[in-house]
């Protein structure tokens, strides 16, 4: 199995989706995007280890989200599942795709076939929720604040966790 993954394409697709729905400022309405892409969004209490799932049932995409998780985390999960729907529709049609917590955080080293999907999905999700340009701009306006305060201010603006914004900055620079 080849381990080719195309992060650049994933990022481009996320940017395209933002443009398509005329979203120009944070926080990005991921639930609305999911629904407008024709997905049925379903929250259910799942094992803590599970973040979410994606599956195309009878031609209708289903995105499942762990109802027990923090709303910020759910937003990232939804963005990640939207990525699977946009980038890997065939894959999530053939089989139910379940995302565990660790697949959302995994380091992009030594990628196997399934890891490639997760890497692409994470790149897409990061760009969808926290577009690089917007993040840069947000920090540029918070220069007078100390690092920690700036992080939490920007995180709140994007409605993501501070660790998500921190990871994002590390990817970007």
């Amino acid at each position: 199995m080849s381990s080719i993954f195309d992060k650049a394409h994933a990022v481009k697709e996320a940017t395209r989706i933002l443009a398509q729905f005329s979203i120009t400022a944070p926080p990005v309405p991921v639930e609305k995007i999911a629904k407008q892409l024709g997905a049925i969004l379903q929250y259910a209490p799942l094992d803590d280890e599970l973040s979410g799932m994606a599956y195309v049932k009878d031609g209708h995409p289903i995105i499942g989200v762990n109802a027990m998780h923090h709303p910020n985390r759910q937003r990232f999960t939804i963005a990640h599942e939207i990525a699977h729907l946009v980038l890997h529709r065939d894959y999530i049609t053939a089989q139910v795709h379940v995302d565990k917590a660790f697949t959302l955080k995994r380091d992009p080293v030594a990628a196997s076939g399934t890891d490639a999907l997760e890497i692409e999905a994470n790149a897409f999700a990061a760009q969808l929720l926290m577009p690089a340009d917007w993040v840069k701009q947000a920090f540029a306006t918070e220069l007078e604040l100390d690092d920690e305060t700036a992080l939490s201010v920007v995180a709140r603006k994007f409605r993501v966790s501070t660790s998500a914004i921190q990871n994002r900055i590390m990817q970007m620079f």
Partner: protein
Amino acid sequence: MDEKKLYKGLGEMIAARRNKLGLNQANLAKQVNMSRASIANIEVGRQRVLVHQLYLLAEALELTDGPRSLLPIARAVSTDTLPMPEGGLTVKQKSQIEQLVGSISTTKPKTAKK
């Protein structure tokens, strides 16, 4: 609904119960006024059972709650088993995911936008 699975499942239940009672196919056939060949065919799912025959069979097989206990459960004969990922999930996690997907009706989606 998978009809093949349904009749095969029903046949297996009849055969299992008959064997438990120590009856042979000819004995059972006589009690329900059918041929031995019919019983043999029913037991492998090749012949469809009429409703009154089902009641007679249940009676002959001494099932106190009638034909009910001979019927396969709906889930077992459903054609849409979910293609779940192989491995990586515990039994509990798997059933949570199955429940989540099962709770969604795709026949009349609320957000059918093309």
